[in-house]
């Protein structure tokens, strides 16, 4: 079947098989390999993307259900020429080690700060508990989230 969806602002019409997940379409059909496949059970959050305004594990979304959807992946957050403040904070705070969880965590953090700009530290922790990281122990991730939040608040101030 053909599925038409918007990814990072670009329209795609993709031929997909019935078994394919959104994650598979992003990685193998569209070549957007930022989202990772670390558990395929919705436990680790490495495949996190924003799907019609909601943060989802793209491994749990069937490709067929993405018809007409608007998807934002880590590639849509920013690139080397212009990092998203969350991406910049992850680099600055040392929140990246092996980096396998990073795309999912960056998408989740950016989405949280967009939808809940005043989130408390506990709210940040609770919101990011769906993204597993095996390297950092999360200290630097939380410092990055807070730094990005602070940066965003300063930018918004008159």
């Amino acid at each position, binding site marked *: 079947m053909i599925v038409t969806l918007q990814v990072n602002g670009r329209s795609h019409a993709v031929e997909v*098989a019935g*078994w394919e997940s959104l994650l598979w379409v992003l*990685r193998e059909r569209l*070549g*957007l*390999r*930022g*989202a*990772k*496949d*670390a*558990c*395929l*059970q919705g*436990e*680790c959050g*490495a495949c996190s993307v924003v799907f019609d305004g909601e943060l989802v594990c793209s491994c749990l979304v069937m490709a067929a259900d993405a018809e007409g959807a608007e998807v934002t*992946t*880590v*590639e849509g*957050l*920013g*690139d*080397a020429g212009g*990092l998203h403040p969350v*991406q910049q904070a*992850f*680099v*600055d*705070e*040392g929140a*990246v*080690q*092996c*980096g*396998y*969880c*990073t*795309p999912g965590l*960056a998408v989740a953090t950016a989405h949280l700060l967009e939808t809940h700009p005043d989130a408390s530290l*506990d709210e940040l*922790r*609770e919101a*990011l*508990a*769906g*993204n*597993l*990281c*095996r*390297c*950092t*122990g*999360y*200290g*630097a*991730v*939380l410092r990055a989230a807070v730094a990005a939040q602070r940066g965003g608040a300063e930018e918004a101030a008159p």
Partner: protein
Amino acid sequence: MSETLVRRPPVRGGVGASVPRPDGVPKVTGRFEFLGDMHHEDMLWGATRRAWVPHARLVRVDVTPALAMPGVHAALTQDDVPGHRYQGQAVTDQPVLAEDEVRYWGEPVAIVAADDPETARRAAEAIVVEVEELDPLTDLDVALERGAVFRHVPVRRGDPDAHGEVVVEGTYVTATQDPAALGTEAGLAVPDGSGGIDLWGPTQWTHIDLKQLAACLALDPAQLRVQPCRLGGAFGSREDLSLQTHIGMLALRLGRPVKMVYDRHESFVGHVKRHGALMHYRHEADRDGTLVRVDARILLDGGPYQLTSNAVIANSTYFAVGPYRCDHVTVDGYALRTNNPPSGAMRGFGANQPCFAAEAQMDRLAAALGMDPLELRLRNALGQGDRLPTTGQLIEHPLPTDEVIRSVAAIPLPDPADDDDPLHLPGGTGMTTPRSRVVRGVGYAVGLKNLQFSEGFDDYAEARVELTADGAVVHTAAIEVGQGMVTIIEQIARSALGMSNVRVEFDHTGRIGSAGSTSASRQTQMAGNATLEAATAVREQALAAAGGDDLDDAGVWRDGALVASLTELTANGPLTHHVRYRHRPTDQPDADGQGELHVDFCVAAHRAVVDVDPDLGLVRVVEIAIGQDVGRALNPQQVHGQIEGGIAQGMAHAVMEEVLLDRGVIRNPTLTDYLLPTCLDAPHVEAALVEVPSPWGPFGAKGMAELPTMSATPAVAAAIRAATGLPLTRVPIRPEDIAVPDPPPDDPEPHPPEAGGR
């Protein structure tokens, strides 16, 4: 180091600064190409047929149903291995594919290549595997009884008749832990058109893979280029081969690139684990707290193949006592052969299991002596000039055991919690603990581990520094696993050269010699020293060539004036220097396990603060503080990152992480059932870095990243013991261990101090 290096102002991005990692931007934008992200236009997908029995005779393997499926290009078995049919780092005892026996649950039996991963998976399932099940050997005592021993490491030191006035004994268990790197195993093998291949696979040491793969694939090592890989974590689990031989076989057979990716379930049987252990200990001390004697027997569950078990059990044995002076020590360490999943390296490499047991023993001893647990540890703290209690080795270099204990104890304790926010209560939002039932506990533990390979291993690391018109490049075959070696190497090269325009290029096995393994806390000192020597030599070449007195990104300077730009300096080609760095030699152990077996040591002390709900057995690890020996922190931010990440892994082994084994079968091979800590589980971390420069590390640095994991586990256990009064001799500590504890079988009293006079 030359004097000019010391006098010059520090360079931008040099040692001591928290330089951001150079691969940070590609990683955070999703552009970093991990192994599983690799792609080749013409590639096929591989899949593995496994036998889901822990022990069986392999009666028949028939690949014809797979080959009959459209889109399937090859289906291979052990009979198709072109060269040596067994692999292994030290002892080649692991069949590439099961030969006539299946020895662990999930052992690979056959491999296929097909047009797409789904076809490959179905083809692998279609292969007929006929087995006759055998009784699996899964009990450590039985394995020892039957002589299923990979290696017995004995330690006999001091007087067998020397005894202390106070004795404590205990039996301890640590369950199997999975490294669970977030990136699963993935690889790509690409034929080069002239009989050889380029191979990308999950590894921590490309040259040891080269040796094994060349033998199994019947290739001349020059025909096989093991490429530097981009890993989603390692923690030891990439020291042994997983899918490399398989994709190599398929690519060679078909003359086409083959990619293979394990899913999480397959990953659980596709890499080595931290050995489960059963340990018996007896500590004896005088009434003043002087440790007199330690006797221990340590059994490690190696699984069916040797892999690195021979070296892991050496570590368990030699670090059985911990960082304490003791003159009379008997240890018997056994790495045992079983039908449990293969075990091997994981962060701490055999030193963690005895650390859990020995630290529990120190607390028991303190209780028996009526002494503060920290005072007992300080009284016996091992330091420079002492002898390692097991091997008798003189501790030649600084070892700040005393300092790490004092520094962690000086960190203020967290405030007592008094709110009812479920996030701050044991069990989190899913629990029902009222604050009034929560008991706080505080516990300490201290860890000691070797740096580098031991027991006479002839170890080296190569590096080549090239200075060109565009800056300096460090060439190395060392593997960056996420820990940040790439940053450290750049920082060392910058400080040595006096230039900031430095980058690291990771080379395949055909372009540079071995850098050794990214393990054993090695690379900061090994690849680091190789880089330091090479960069220092290139700087001297540059100064000599232009008659200058300083070098920076512009070129060579003399008396404050630029005398040669980098372009002029390298007009006849790059200035290069190649180094093969060796650490000092070590001994092989004598029959009593004695000798100068280790290059150097590192030490850390942890303090855990926990809140426990004794009714439900729930634990919240509130905070872990650490005093950590680092030599010198070349990149403080990265050191903190290693500390926080390592502590999360060690904490989780105390209360969460266990590979549930049922007669050799893993019952929780998913991230749904194998519980990794989330950011709600990971504790707040406070770290005190103890900087006593290493006399031989680059700029005084030590490798340090294993210690944060090691003594975190026993510290959390000690804190839970303090909160509950329970003996808790096994990790992970499960809710039922706290809520409905078994009475000790040989002890009618609920929880007496297990001590007695002599």
